[in-house]
């Protein structure tokens, strides 16, 4: 069972995140006090830590993060904070967090990001080729085949597909796609991502027996042969 430490002083918020993670099968500990949190974060083994920034007694969560990193711990840390300005975000990333999510947030977004962070910490190195159902993707040659038939993709469409593939079976949010495929750190107003996905879908899933790209309502998308993953239903 995966273990997650939630460092958050707001009971309501902590409960919301903890319940969500427990439903996904995590073993969750909530810590509301900054001083106590340092000890637990350092003293025990965790698969992920969710860290609030503004803690009681004027403790900045980032100081806990810094302590952890200075001790050489590579535990994935997702910072959750109301401090949304770019320089705050940059500070968080500099201090060694793996992702920085601003409040308010949807649990589905948080869950998707934790999954992404966990994957990033165990990269599938040397993977040349990936198979999903009857689709074969060559990551080096950048070619795609579905049921033995070659599919021509634009470079950006290929990156979109590759990102979905790397997070196979997990939900990726629109924000995550914007950040990793287009390198955009803001939300365009129009539903640009949806249109790109529907274009990709029309190329990949057209005439196919099993659709691979699924919409997770209100959250984002997932690529899997078996329909939307129940895991991260928002």
């Amino acid at each position, binding site marked *: 069972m995966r273990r997650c430490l939630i460092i958050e002083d707001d009971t309501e918020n902590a409960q919301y995140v903890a319940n969500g993670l427990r439903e996904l099968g995590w073993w969750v500990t909530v810590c509301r006090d900054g001083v106590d949190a340092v000890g637990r974060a350092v003293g025990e083994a965790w698969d992920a830590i969710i860290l609030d920034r503004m803690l009681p007694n004027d403790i900045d969560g980032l100081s806990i993060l810094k302590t952890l990193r200075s001790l050489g711990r590579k535990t994935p840390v997702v910072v959750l904070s109301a401090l949304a300005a*770019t320089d705050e975000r940059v500070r968080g990333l500099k201090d060694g967090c793996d992702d920085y999510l601003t409040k308010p947030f949807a649990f589905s977004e948080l869950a998707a990001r934790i999954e992404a962070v966990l994957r990033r910490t165990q990269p599938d190195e040397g993977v040349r080729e990936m198979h999903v159902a009857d689709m074969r993707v060559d990551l080096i040659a950048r070619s795609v085949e579905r049921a033995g038939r070659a599919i021509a993709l634009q470079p950006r469409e290929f990156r979109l597909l590759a990102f979905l593939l790397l997070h196979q079976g997990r939900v990726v949010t629109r924000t995550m796609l914007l950040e990793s495929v*287009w*390198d*955009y750190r*803001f939300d365009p*107003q*129009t*539903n640009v991502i949806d*249109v790109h996905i*529907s274009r990709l879908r029309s190329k990949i899933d057209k005439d196919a027996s099993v659709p691979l790209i699924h919409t997770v309502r209100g959250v984002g998308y997932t690529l899997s042969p078996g329909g939307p993953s129940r895991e991260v239903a928002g």
Partner: protein
Amino acid sequence: MSGTLARWWSSIAFRQALIFAALIVCTMTVLLALFYVQTVGVWQRRIDSQIDATTQRLVDYHKRSGSPVLGTHINNLLGDGIDSDTEVYTLVAPDGHVVAGNLAVTPEITTPMRSIGEHRVLRAGRASRSRLRVTALNDGSILIVGRDMQDQHELEQLIRGAIFSGAIVTLLMAVVGALLFRRQLERRIGTIRETAARIERGDLAQRVPISAKQDEFARLNRDINAMLDRIHALMEGVRHVSNTIAHNIRTPLSRVLARLYTAQNAAKPAEALPDAVGFAIAEIQDLNVVFDKLLRIAEVESGARRQTFATVSLNAIAVNALDLYDAVAEAKGLTLSHTLDAQPTVTGDGDLLANAVANLIDNAIKYTPSGGAIQVDTRREGASVTLTVRDNGRGIPEEERTRVGTRFYRLDRAVPGWGLGLASVLAIARLHGGSLQLEDAGPGLIARLVLPAVGA
């Protein structure tokens, strides 16, 4: 007293003036000392050479004529009324009696010397100091030639006194000058401080009065006033914005509340609730987006992001944005085309510029009906780089153009959006020292993002 002194000392003007005064006093002292040594020294050397010359003449005279004639000659010299106040001549016979002269003879002054020396003597019955040359003549007599230095010494003392009192006066004037300088500076700074104090008390309309003088303080005051104008404008902006924000945030909040209350009080709450919750979630998510966008605009306007400026190519940004929007444009039946210049590089924040360009394209797509065309160009002209987004949609009526860019201003309430897109483009353009120009494309809109070019 020590308190006053400490207060004066803590004044930079006073300290500066005093240091300057000390410098002047030092210079004066060195100068006067030099003057003293030069005048007095030269004077003395001249007297010495005169004594040497006279001695030589009298020795020669003695060689030719002998002691008695020399004695007569000396008496003549002493009696001729020339230099009688200062001249010293005495001829002493080998037996010790004075043949002629005006000195009271003592053993000290009858010993021949190799050089001229200064001695206390009794000249014509008066005690004085004289420079003397004592020479032994070939018949054993002693010739003393010299000059009374008493007046000279008095003059020297006078000069010394003058130098000393001059130094005292300079010092006094320096201190008074320092005080005056300090007062002057304090008065000029005082006006700035008074204004600052009034502003601190909350009156932002106060400005530092500018004197007619074109000095450093006038320039500083103008700079301060310009800064205050900017702060004032920002504050006004904040006041205006907080009103609109209050309106634009309270309205959806009251909508959500109304919907939830209605659901709570419905005849069958269980049936009404899911819809109301869905509505509330959507509205709150929207509010969150609005909030986020407002904070981003505020962040841009604060100027903090200038610190991370780097050289970026508008082409790369345009290509990325076009790539993001081409699918949407195609889906809406719009043609999205572009012409890119070779070198449109600017110094800026890549993320923000991408945001601005995306906003402009987003707007063009929203306001151009199906079948229309959107053209994105980058162009470098002299010192500026321009990114143009041109559409053939409905455009913006001229009288509305100045209002576009105001937060929450929306041309058409039927088109989805929050009225923050162009406001953020405007803020981003200003952050980069550029501008946003809107023109009529007849029909349609030309939006130009003009930025200073790199190396311009």
